[in-house]
């Protein structure tokens, strides 16, 4: 059983609705859906504090990891916790934890993951430094060291 205390290190969480079509023939949420849940959660995370012009800067995934601890089942309600754990020049890492509450009210950590994301200049289609304003917004929100 994963310890819930780690959640204190996250300043943001959001509810994600599991859809009927997310379940596969094994009765679990299909493994391929988790990166979509992470994506949906990080968009909400950014909307919460970050000013981002998607017509100038894109963000692409360079690396993704998902650790499936226990499956998500019908009736589970989930929250995805998101934080920025590393800030580089053109890239940054986000960590995710999915916490599920089942129909009996039992809460468990079901999934842990991370994505390394690269900022790109939309016009040039090349990596570009994270703009200073947005870097500061991330540092302030997640209390990172500058």
């Amino acid at each position, binding site marked *: 059983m994963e310890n819930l205390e780690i959640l204190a290190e996250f300043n943001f969480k959001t509810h994600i609705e599991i859809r009927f079509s997310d379940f596969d*023939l094994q009765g679990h949420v299909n493994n391929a*859906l988790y*990166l979509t849940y992470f*994506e949906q959660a990080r968009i909400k995370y950014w909307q919460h504090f970050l000013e981002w012009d998607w017509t100038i800067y*894109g963000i692409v995934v*360079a*690396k993704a*990891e*998902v650790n499936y601890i226990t499956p998500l089942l019908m009736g589970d309600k989930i929250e995805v916790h998101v934080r920025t754990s590393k800030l580089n020049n053109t890239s940054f890492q986000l960590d995710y934890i999915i916490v599920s509450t089942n129909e009996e009210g039992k809460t468990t950590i079901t999934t842990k993951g991370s994505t390394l994301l690269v900022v790109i200049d939309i016009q040039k289609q090349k990596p570009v430094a994270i703009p200073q304003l947005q870097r500061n917004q991330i540092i302030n929100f997640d209390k990172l060291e500058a």
Partner: protein
Amino acid sequence: MQLYTLDFEVRDYECDLQGIVNNAVYQNYYEHARHKLLKQRGLDFARLHLENIDPVVYRIEIDFKRPLKSGDQFSIESYIEREGNLKFLFFQCIKKNDAIINKAKVTVVFTSQGKPIAAPQNILEALGL
């Protein structure tokens, strides 16, 4: 090591507003390729489930090198190795004209009634492991 190769094509609805295949879609490609590999070895994913044997993904790592775009033709290469008694590693790679698009390492565990099990002998033999 027996390499299994599957040819594929990007469908427009898999591309996001950045004009590239959305990162989550690659997991669908990889999963389909794994199931086709199993089928080639005489193991049917849906039939295994009816027999109460479910291979489940325990961990996945994907390294994205280049994007795929609308209409791209590509291939998925897959092979499988055994790690210890319970874990099976699928090493998978998506290539377009020999250029690596991305690579994945997928750890799979066989389960029955939700509990990990040692893979039955007939499965090991089918996989050549």
